[in-house]
């Protein structure tokens, strides 16, 4: 029984998670088939654009899981999580930039176009190694992780909590945004990194590559979900929840609160970095706008809308909000900000547990009514 499967025991009482994973599996199998195997003029054909859009949503969902880990389970409201996402994205972007080689506008085999444009003589040292895929991927996880470690180590050790922590995480992403806007930083300044050609030799313009990226993203999302689920159901996860609910009590019992918080924070940042690295080849650009504090706050709303502390709630929120964003910004651009603003207010005032919370409440009421009726 114990060895039967950690996997099954982990999901035993996670009905939402099971539904989510099954849906994800269906989507991952069906969408690529409908794209690649069905003829273009068929009504069932799904365009590559849609596939890429779905891939984007799945990246957001992974990012939302990362935030839910720290916010929903650990009680740390990070208003700078998009920074880790963007850092992962930049690592991937640097790899893709190096893959362009001499096919850039200026045809320089060594330097990306923007560096030639700025009259740079040679590649800065921090770009070394990014022509290797494995190195870039390592960095996409390592850089957000190290930053989160440093930041968290400082902040948790000196017991910066609650609102103060939120504000300084916001300051962090704001500072990074300003820094990446500078041309001198060597990350393309305002324009960021773009004009990517290929990844691991596969052209980014081809449908098959796009579908492949989508499948990989879905896989990573599933893995990310399972690992996160593993963490929150493990002993560590329960301590983390205890820290959220009564930090002082957990500390008095003898747990080193700081290190628990720190490790969850770092893991979450790494997850966000992976999401960013998956995001960039699909959208084809990474620029400093990704660091903007607005993005991080929007991310918080996804999680709040879905319902925090449930992981699959975060996924649901990310996909729902982004789907309506895509729809509204195209159909009624003026309405989008009104809708988003109203969503913030409604969710915080009326739905503190998000949509999942609302569903659970309705179900509980039904059960109660049935009980009342039966006797």
């Amino acid at each position, binding site marked *: 029984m114990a060895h039967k499967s950690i996997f099954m025991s982990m999901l035993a009482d996670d009905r939402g998670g099971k539904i989510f994973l099954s849906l994800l599996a269906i989507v991952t199998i069906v969408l690529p088939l409908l794209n690649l195997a069905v003829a273009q003029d068929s009504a069932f054909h799904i365009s590559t654009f849609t596939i890429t859009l779905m891939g984007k949503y799945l990246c957001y969902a992974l990012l939302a899981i990362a935030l839910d880990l720290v916010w929903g389970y650990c009680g740390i409201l990070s208003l700078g999580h998009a920074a880790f996402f963007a850092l992962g994205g930049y690592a991937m972007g640097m790899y893709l930039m190096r893959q362009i080689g001499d096919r850039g506008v200026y045809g320089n085999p060594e330097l990306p176009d923007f560096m030639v444009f700025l009259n740079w003589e040679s590649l800065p040292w921090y770009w070394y190694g990014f022509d290797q895929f494995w190195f870039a991927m390592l960095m996409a996880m390592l850089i957000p992780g190290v930053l989160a470690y440093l930041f968290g180590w400082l902040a948790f050790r000196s017991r910066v909590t609650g609102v103060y922590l939120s504000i300084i995480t916001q300051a962090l992403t704001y*500072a990074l945004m300003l820094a990446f806007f500078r041309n001198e930083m060597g990350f393309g300044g305002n324009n960021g990194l773009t004009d990517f050609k290929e990844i691991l030799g596969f052209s980014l313009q081809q449908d098959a590559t796009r579908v492949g990226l989508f499948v990989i993203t879905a896989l990573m999302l599933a893995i990310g979900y399972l690992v996160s689920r593993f963490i929150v159901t493990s002993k560590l996860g329960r301590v983390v929840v205890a820290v959220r609910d009564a930090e002082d009590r957990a500390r008095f019992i003898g747990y080193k609160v700081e290190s628990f918080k720190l490790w969850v924070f770092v893991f979450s940042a790494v997850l966000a970095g992976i999401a960013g690295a998956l995001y960039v080849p699909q959208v084809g650009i990474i620029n400093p706008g990704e660091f903007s504090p*607005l993005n991080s706050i929007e991310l918080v709303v996804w999680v709040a809308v879905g319902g925090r502390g449930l992981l699959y709630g975060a996924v649901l929120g990310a996909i729902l909000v982004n789907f309506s964003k895509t729809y509204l910004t195209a159909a009624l651009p003026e309405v989008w900000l009104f809708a988003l603003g109203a969503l913030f207010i409604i969710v915080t*005032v009326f739905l503190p547990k998000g949509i999942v919370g609302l569903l659970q409440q309705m179900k509980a009421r039904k059960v109660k009514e049935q009980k009342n009726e039966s006797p």
Partner: protein
Amino acid sequence: MKLPCITGHLKCLLLLLMLCLSVLTINPVLAASGDEQFMNALQQLTAKKFNQKSQAISEIENSRHSQVKPVLNALLTGNLYYRKSDKVVFIVQKQDETFQLIDVLSDQQVAEVGKRTLKKISINNTLRSQLRSIIARVDLSDPNADVRRSAVQDMMKDMSLDAVNLLQEQLVIERSEIVKETIQVAIALYDIKSDDKATKLNAINALGDSVHPEANNLLKYVVSKDADGNYVENDLELRLAAQNAISTVETKLKIYSFAETLFFGVSLGSVLLLSAIGLAITFGVMGVINMAHGELMMLGAYTTYVVQLLMPNSIEYSLMVAVPAAFLVAGFVGILIERGVLQFLYGRPLETLLATFGISLILQQVVRSVFSPLNRSVETPEWMSGAWEINSALALTYNRLYIIIFSLIIFALLILILKKTALGLYIRSVSQNREMAKAMGVRSEWVDALTFGLGSGIAGIAGVALSQLTNVGPNLGQAYIIDSFMVVVFGGVGNLWGTFVAAMSLGVVNKFLEPWSGAVLAKIIVLVFIILFIQKRPKGLFPQKGRAGGN
């Protein structure tokens, strides 16, 4: 019988009419009698002999007519002609082959003629220098100090003995310090070329007192070497004096540039103070994280814009109206926000953050829909534009100066409200111990609404000030919200003096870093510094003491 009578009446009427007409025609002549002397003198310019012309020029000057300067300038540049037929003098503008005649008195173009009908009024070198000094004198007696200063600056380019004498006369009666300084530099510029060593030495010392850029250049020239490696100035004593003068000038320049940076820093600090004190109240006193604070400032700025639209003819007074209007508008919106949303969220600061962020998005979109997403231009009243030039190295712009004063006044008023009024007492009591205050009969909900209204109203006032410094657009608020939070957190929540110290020190530090690192990097450094500072002292510079600071 009756006919002659009627004709007699008619004659009377006619007479009257003629009288009226004659009065009408005579009147302008009477009014223009000041022109007469001027016109007569002009006429004499058509004389052949130069000494006659010279006399005419003096007479023109004596007439003190408003057109003296343009006429003499035209004469100096060879653009003054007279018509051969009637000897009437005109200022002429040459355009291709034709000559446009401009009436001397009215400055209006009256005719366009060929070259042949005109004769140029020629001058010689004596007349030229006479003209130059007269023009300079006219400028120097101008009531506007700026005109006087630029006249001196013009004369500096080409100093003559006459000019020096003129300037020396002016120096005695000159009142403006900055014009005096410029005159002294001009005189020293002439003296330094003299052969007399004592005069030279004096001139060098005089130049050492001035921070005028021209003075500094000249001093550097005195100690420089020419192409052959020889000193331009042979006398060692003079060179040493010049060296000394240079070092005093440089020290002075350093002091002035320090003062200027300090001024910029304080002015940035007061902008930060204005934008942060409203937040300090809502955040510090109520525990509400108001992310819509920036948008309330934006509303204040737009209120200024609307006020100016409503009173386009009295821009000078628009700000006086805009300040209370912005306070009311932003305060009203603030109370709406508090009653509509925030009252359900007390005790959940992170939720207030999200809800108010939603409100900020809605407010931005409202402004975009109502006013367009483009920036609106808010006019700066006359009394706020320009600069207070203390000397040639230090000038303080009036808009920043007024904003510093304004922010100090607002800060003082706020302290007074909190410390001396009943409302302030209630606010403080609720912030310290809500339950106890309720038990004593304070209507805490009412206090909450008013406190939030007060904080929001101050944000609106800050918006009025910002409208004078930056573009008024839907994104105005976003640019300031993070800075404002930094100020409040850095200063210590719930402490207005902490906010004051934090705003000023962050402003000054930022401006002193800027020349060394660039504006963006300076901001990043300050942000990183605050992040690190919060780790060291999580409750800010001046943490609240006692139970109120506990949570």
